[in-house]
């Protein structure tokens, strides 16, 4: 996680160039502000940064000019640095130096050089330290491609800025909620910093989540959105309920499973199991008929259930004849309107007359027929 992402060498200086131009602008801007030590320093830096025109996160590192109009060792230091540091950290350093320059500190710059050269311990004066701290805190919020760069920044500052390191450690705890895999380490989210791309992205994400939750809330019946957690619970319960409904429906379909595909009644008159065969034969029908007749005398409900188990239904003769004449494949039976065919595509029906009553037992039609049946009326 500590691998530095190096930009190629030649583009380095152009970014520095652009950054320096900005800093010169900043330098003039800084004059009217009154410099206060440590406490409001961070706010000041915020103001400063908010005025910086947004630079693309990947600098155009294509140019080779050394930065114009600066002190010699400054440019030298920068050249040195750009070889060591990648984009955002370099910018951080540059801004910091500008700040220090404007504050009239020349000595800390050299200290800074030493620190970057990783040779010296903490020799910076407390003000410098505070400014570095403040600057660093701000820049951890910068969009550096990955905050590996800020980590690298740590590394380069070395033990000299232990406080900033501990601060960043503390900053990890205060980072905005749900930095979902955007950066490998936690980035401190500065509240109220509207131009920070990180917070903008976070806000975008939160908005997306909110609108999704709203659309979900419309789907789920109980739509009193008191808070997000209870809404989530409602959603979970509803999904479980729907899945349970599917389970129940497929369970109840067991008895009537034969109804989906047109099946002939079972050969055995006793069995309530759905039939597996597709043939319709008269003997089976007759046996069923007898069984049904017997049941009808005892109990209508069980008769109906028996029929349903076999994939048959009870219907008035008139309807049955109407259906059978309407369907194309029906053959005229000898004495009762029995038609053959067992395939799912054949729209035939077979009817049986029960002498005892004026109803007929019609074989279950295929689903297409059932849908077509209302058209007959």
């Amino acid at each position: 996680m500590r691998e530095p992402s190096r930009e190629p060498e030649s583009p380095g200086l152009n970014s520095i160039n652009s950054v320096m131009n900005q800093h010169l602008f900043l330098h003039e801007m800084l004059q009217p502000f009154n410099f206060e030590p440590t406490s409001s320093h961070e706010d000041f830096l915020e103001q400063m940064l908010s005025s910086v025109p947004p630079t693309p996160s990947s600098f155009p590192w294509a140019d080779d000019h050394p930065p114009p109009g600066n002190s010699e060792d400054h440019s030298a230091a920068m050249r040195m640095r750009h070889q060591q540091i990648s984009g955002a950290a370099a910018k951080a350093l540059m801004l910091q130096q500008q700040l220090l320059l404007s504050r009239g500190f020349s000595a800390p710059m050299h200290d800074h050089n030493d620190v970057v050269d990783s040779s010296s311990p903490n020799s910076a004066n407390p003000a410098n330290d505070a400014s570095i701290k403040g600057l660093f805190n701000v820049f951890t919020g910068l969009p550096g491609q990955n905050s590996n760069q800020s980590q690298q920044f740590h590394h380069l500052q070395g033990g000299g800025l232990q406080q900033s390191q501990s601060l960043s450690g503390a900053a990890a705890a205060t980072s905005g909620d749900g930095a979902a895999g955007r950066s490998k380490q936690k980035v401190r989210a500065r509240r109220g910093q509207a131009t920070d791309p990180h917070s903008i992205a976070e806000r975008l994400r939160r908005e997306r989540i909110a609108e999704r939750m709203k659309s979900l809330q419309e789907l789920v019946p109980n739509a009193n959105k008191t808070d997000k957690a209870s809404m989530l619970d409602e959603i979970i319960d509803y999904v479980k309920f729907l899945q349970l409904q599917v389970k129940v429906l497929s369970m109840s379909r067991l008895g009537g499973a034969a109804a989906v595909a047109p099946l002939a009644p079972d050969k055995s008159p006793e069995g309530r199991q759905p039939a597996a065969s597709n043939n319709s034969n008269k003997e089976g029908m007759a046996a069923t008929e007898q069984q049904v007749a017997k049941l009808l005398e005892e109990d209508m409900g069980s008769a109906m259930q028996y029929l349903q188990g076999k994939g048959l239904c009870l219907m008035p003769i008139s309807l049955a004849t109407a259906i059978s004449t309407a369907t194309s494949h029906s053959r005229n039976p000898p004495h009762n309107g029995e038609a053959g065919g067992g395939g799912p595509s054949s729209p035939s029906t077979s009817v049986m007359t029960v002498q005892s009553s004026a109803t007929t037992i019609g074989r279950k039609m295929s689903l297409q027929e059932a849908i077509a049946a209302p058209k007959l009326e």
Partner: protein
Amino acid sequence: MNIQPPNSSSIKSRFAVKFVQAMKRLSKRRGMGDRYKRYRATRAAARVSLAAAVGPERAWSRAVLRRIKKRRGLIGRTTTNPRRNLRGLVPGGKGMDYCSLLSETAHYITCLQAQVQVMQDMLHLSSP
């Protein structure tokens, strides 16, 4: 990122056709006298038919179809661990970020509603 909400009626018709076909195949199969087995197979057929009707355009349907190809337990998940977590409920919800999980849930709910309606209608049609 939010694809348009599902067209309920088209999903219903597609699901109905596929489900009926699957049930026919099921009824022809041997060894399906056992009620529990038949119930499991029916539920699996319902799930698969729904996913096939939705197609590969949603992540959850892709996850279901993937599970078939892998020939793992189609229903095993939802029965064995009824989790409080939304990720456990929506198929394919494990490896998803929260944002897309929510949109997938919305689509999944709509499709489930359509499925329940179709199955209820079929049930009522077949045995009034």
